[in-house]
């Protein structure tokens, strides 16, 4: 019997690394998957456009009011100061044409009380992004924890967490939010007024959207734990904690990042919907959803008041979605 493979051959002694040995004169720095994803993302023009808008929005929201910048003070009036003189008392619309758009008021004036829309859009951006980011953070923390536990340990832990996720996803979230904000006392947990309302909204959105993250994390963990590097770590004597935090979680960063970026616009829309329904932040604090509610009554006399906050929501959600899609393409785990 002859072996198909002559393993004793001298050719087998050739070391392909010998070629690399010469190149290795200068220190070799490997490119991590993150760096590769970044170069790939940079080539995606649409995603970069989304990223630029997202960064601008975050900067604008952060710098809108003192102490960090005071962009509002620079360009317009205080968002909460009425300017009745500029309003036609008969139609409730601004006296000046084009909804009062002028150098002084770049986006015009609000009907009825004549507040500066530009200032209110910036102020509303703060609320939208704050609520969306905090709620996403909360759901990512809970979702990652639950997803990893369910996927890694399996068995009855997985059964309980999976059924819990089904329950949370079946929950009538909007009705629950309306009910809880309506029944809420004026002060609780050391917070009051809008602080309390924002806290409750963040909690409701974050606490009920974790199953979306958890499902993805669970699925990824299920497939990761079958990979041999997990067995390798275990055969080296690694504890479950080590395997979860050092072996599994670094591989989950990419999907978590992608789905958080896609969850943020959903949460922005949800916050706007709650404010539109009157259970978000309360007047006089500006919010995009709240502005839309007020605009409904004046859409004929002051259409700009409806178009502008609508556009703000549209552009923000669009930008986050474009960035999220670009990230997903750049970080695609299939291309490793």
């Amino acid at each position, binding site marked *: 019997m002859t072996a*198909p493979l002559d393993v004793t051959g001298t*050719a087998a002694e050739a070391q392909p690394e010998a070629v690399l040995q010469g190149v*290795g004169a200068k220190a070799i720095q490997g490119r991590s*998957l993150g760096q590769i994803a970044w170069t790939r993302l940079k080539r995606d023009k649409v995603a970069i456009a989304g990223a630029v808008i997202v960064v601008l929005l975050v900067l604008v929201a952060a710098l809108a009011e003192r102490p960090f910048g005071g962009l509002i003070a620079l360009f317009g009036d205080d968002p909460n100061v009425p300017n009745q003189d500029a309003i036609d008392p008969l139609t409730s619309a601004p006296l000046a044409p084009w909804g009062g758009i002028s150098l002084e008021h770049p986006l015009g004036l609000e009907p009825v009380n004549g507040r500066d829309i530009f200032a209110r859009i910036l102020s509303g951006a703060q609320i939208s992004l704050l609520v969306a980011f905090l709620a996403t953070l909360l759901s990512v923390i809970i979702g990652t924890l639950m997803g990893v536990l369910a996927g890694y340990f399996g068995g009855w832990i997985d059964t309980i967490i999976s059924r819990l996720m089904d329950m949370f996803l079946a929950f009538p979230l909007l009705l629950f939010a309306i009910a809880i904000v309506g029944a809420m006392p004026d002060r609780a947990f050391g917070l009051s007024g809008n602080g309390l309302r924002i806290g409750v909204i963040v909690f409701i959105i974050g606490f009920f959207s974790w199953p979306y993250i958890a499902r993805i994390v669970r699925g990824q963990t299920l497939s990761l734990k079958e*990979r041999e*590097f997990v067995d390798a770590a275990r055969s*080296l004597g690694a504890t479950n904690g080590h395997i979860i935090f050092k072996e599994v979680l670094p591989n989950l960063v990419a999907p978590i990042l992608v789905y958080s970026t896609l969850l943020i616009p959903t949460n922005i829309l949800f916050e706007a919907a709650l404010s539109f329904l009157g259970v978000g932040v309360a007047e006089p604090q500006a919010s995009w959803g709240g502005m839309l509610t007020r605009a409904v009554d004046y859409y004929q006399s002051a259409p700009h008041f409806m178009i502008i906050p609508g556009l703000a929501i549209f552009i923000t959600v669009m930008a986050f979605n474009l960035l999220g899609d670009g990230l997903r393409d750049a970080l695609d785990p299939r291309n490793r």
Partner: protein
Amino acid sequence: MTEPLLSVRDLTKHFPVTKGLLRRQVGAVKAVDGVSFEVRKGETLGLVGESGCGKTTTGRLITRLLEPTGGRIVFEGVDITHVKQGRMRPLRRDMQMIFQDPYSSLNPRHTVGTIVGAPFRIQNVKTESGIKKAVQDLLELVGLNPEHYNRYPHEFSGGQRQRIGIARTLALKPKLIIADEPVSALDVSIQAQVVNLLEDLQGELDLTYVVIAHDLSVVRHISDRVAVMYLGKIVELAERKALYDSPMHPYTNALLAAVPVPDPRKRADRDRIRLTGDVPSPINPPPACRFHTRCWKAQDICKTQEPPLEALASGHLVACHFPENAPDKPAGVGAHPAEERATT
């Protein structure tokens, strides 16, 4: 004879098959069903068999990545069959595993330095001149450039990746290495390099190997003794030369006859045994001799009485009622009707 480094007795692993909401057990996949062998210090034991015969499961049971259903595993005189994971940790330094797929056995998010240095960190082993130096020495030992310390696995070829995996395995200077299909995911040209590397390391570092493979040529090249598995049982265990020159179990014969011959002239005058049918399901394996459903020599006794794994001449262990090439069996019993054997 000195005490064996590893001794496995009647090892079994049954994976439960569950059904319905309450996870009622309706059966079991008998992946490994009563396997016994010993590994002596410094030798290489080859474990061969076709897919699904339980050889990988056996490897994972020995390294305690799976919990055995029954039997006994004794490593260096210590019974590790049901040792808790926490108490197993210090023992793992002496027993390491090489994995089959170099594309999945290295964490893509870690650098080579982190991967090869992981054993030191996990086992909390102090090295004389730091982990980085130790890792670079290991990389050099397996024929890689130590400068590749900061690179990521995806920047390497399959053979290089397997070398990285081997470097990680060697980090803690183990005594026993279980190599689960160490070369089957590699190109044939690279297979030779890795097999030779394993042999060189064995001489240098005084290693003992259990090499699991389905490729008979690889096993022939590297092993001192070879065990053949079929459906969760060892059917034949012998010195390499004895097994390849005079295989006794019909299954071993069939396996060896299936190895392709590169010379077409030699191919013509060789007997070929074509096994018919599929491997039976390990959920419901055939009674008595498990090979009787596909064996051309099967008689009634094969269906009723299980042949034990017995030593024949010169320590050749075989589990068959009618072994071939057996000098100490009556010739008439071992002979088989020629017309049942397909020839080309």
